[in-house]
């Protein structure tokens, strides 16, 4: 902790900080003084590249100058207290914030070097490339089969029944759900258990062959066994996809991700290897959050 990078503003002289740890702590808690993200926010293998992202809801600024890369075949976990902006940031990555009135996104966001917020970007194919899984499982009120086949159909990925059958089976297999549902594909998706519904949503997301999967607290409504299945699945999916996951479970972040990003009051405080974040975080705000201290 001696090497703690505080990034306090220039108003706080370094000498004062060293003399007075209490003042040092108070200084860093002021939002305006977290000026730079500590750790390793960037990746040589960036799939998603975000630079100086600011997000506003009307007059309120929800995200302050966040820069982060999400690498190919990497799972990045985003953690932080409620209202820290992690979900808002996640939703920028496939423009889900477009649907929110008064929401404005500034900064550079690219997927494989292409601007996500470019004027000519059509959000429908974008969201096919960057799929999303939500906190609450939200299967369509349709059969299990149609839930998975819907995306490929509307995106024109497959039209013939045989092709669709194959996609449905493959997606359900990869989501670890096939054996449980293969005999009742025509039954409503809403009739499955919570954990099964969430895996169905994952199957639905991967049916359109996305490149990136965004997960917003995918396990918060699930029991530990269903959670373990999803986590196992995330690890398998990493081979083919880039994954960003927002989670309130620190243990989950520690288990599934390679890098962890800690958000605090709309700022990105620290990004580091998950191992580092959970054993020896660089920033004391990260330390306070993951150890359950007053922060």
């Amino acid at each position, binding site marked *: *902790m*001696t*090497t703690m990078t505080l990034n306090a503003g220039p108003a706080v002289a370094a000498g004062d900080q060293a003399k007075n*740890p209490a003042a040092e702590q108070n200084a860093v808690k002021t939002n305006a003084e977290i000026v730079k993200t500590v750790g390793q926010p960037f990746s040589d293998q960036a799939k998603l590249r975000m630079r100086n992202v600011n997000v506003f809801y009307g007059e309120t600024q929800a995200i302050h100058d966040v820069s982060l890369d999400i690498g190919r075949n990497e799972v990045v976990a985003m953690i932080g207290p409620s209202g820290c902006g992690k979900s808002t940031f996640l939703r920028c990555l496939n423009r889900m914030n477009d649907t929110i009135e008064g929401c404005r996104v500034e900064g550079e966001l690219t997927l494989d070097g292409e601007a996500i917020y470019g004027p000519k970007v059509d959000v429908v194919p974008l969201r096919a490339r960057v799929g999303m899984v939500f906190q609450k499982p939200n299967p369509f009120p349709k059969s299990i089969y149609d839930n998975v086949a819907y995306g490929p159909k509307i995106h024109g990925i497959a039209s013939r029944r045989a092709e669709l059958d194959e996609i449905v089976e493959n997606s359900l297999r990869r989501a670890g759900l096939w054996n449980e549902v293969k005999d009742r594909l025509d039954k409503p998706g809403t009739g499955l258990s919570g954990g099964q519904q969430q895996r169905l949503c994952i199957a639905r997301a991967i049916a359109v062959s996305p490149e990136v999967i965004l997960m917003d607290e995918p396990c918060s409504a699930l029991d530990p066994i269903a959670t373990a299945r999803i986590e196992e699945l995330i690890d398998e999916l990493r081979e083919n996809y880039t994954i960003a996951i927002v989670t309130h479970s620190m243990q989950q972040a520690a288990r599934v991700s390679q890098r962890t990003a800690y958000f605090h009051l709309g700022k990105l405080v620290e990004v580091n290897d998950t191992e580092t974040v959970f*054993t*020896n*975080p660089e920033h004391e705000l990260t330390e306070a959050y993951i*150890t*359950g*201290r007053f922060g």
Partner: protein
Amino acid sequence: MEMHFDQHISRQFNEDLESIKTEMLEMGGMVTRQVADAVEALATADSELAEKVLRVEEEIDRCEMELDEHATLIIAKRQPAASDLRMVMSIIRIARDLERVGDEASKIAKMAIALTEEGTAPRGYTEIRHIANAVRKMLNDSLDAYTRFDVKSAMETLAEDEQVDMDYRSAVREMITYMMEDPRSISRVMNVLWTLRSLERIGDHAKNICEQVVYLVEGADIRHGNEAKLR
């Protein structure tokens, strides 16, 4: 340096961590006393004191098991992270070192009993006293550094082990000379040698404790010559 182990939202967690730390330091106090008593028993041919060391040894073993159990419970209940995790891990490791120091102390106590029975004052006591004082200081200082989360003092104490190792080697050479001079002294001098060996090992354990202070405070694992990892 502030480690803030008393600032968890869960007060019970604060108490749990505080309590295993206290337990470990109490065990450290007992073990330090054991080393002092064992050496004293040897130097003054006090077999009663040596017997006491052997009795207390069982208590120390029990302490280690209890501490292990409490640390395991904290891991199971709290899934500690960052400095909390390092504190629990360091305490588990230090408890093992302390238990081994206790073993060495009871070995010395056994030598004391053996040497007392022979009734002669063998040579080599000066060396034993000298090394014993050095390692007792190391042990004290290492635990003190842990209490105060003091990396600087831990590193200083850690460096003292080199001198202890040198003193040990030179004492061994001297003992070999005694044995060559007077082969009848071999069995007695061997007891002195084993004692010196035990003391040297205690120095190593104190060094391990210092390494855990660094691990706790800095998160750097400097064991096995990895001191460069200390940023």
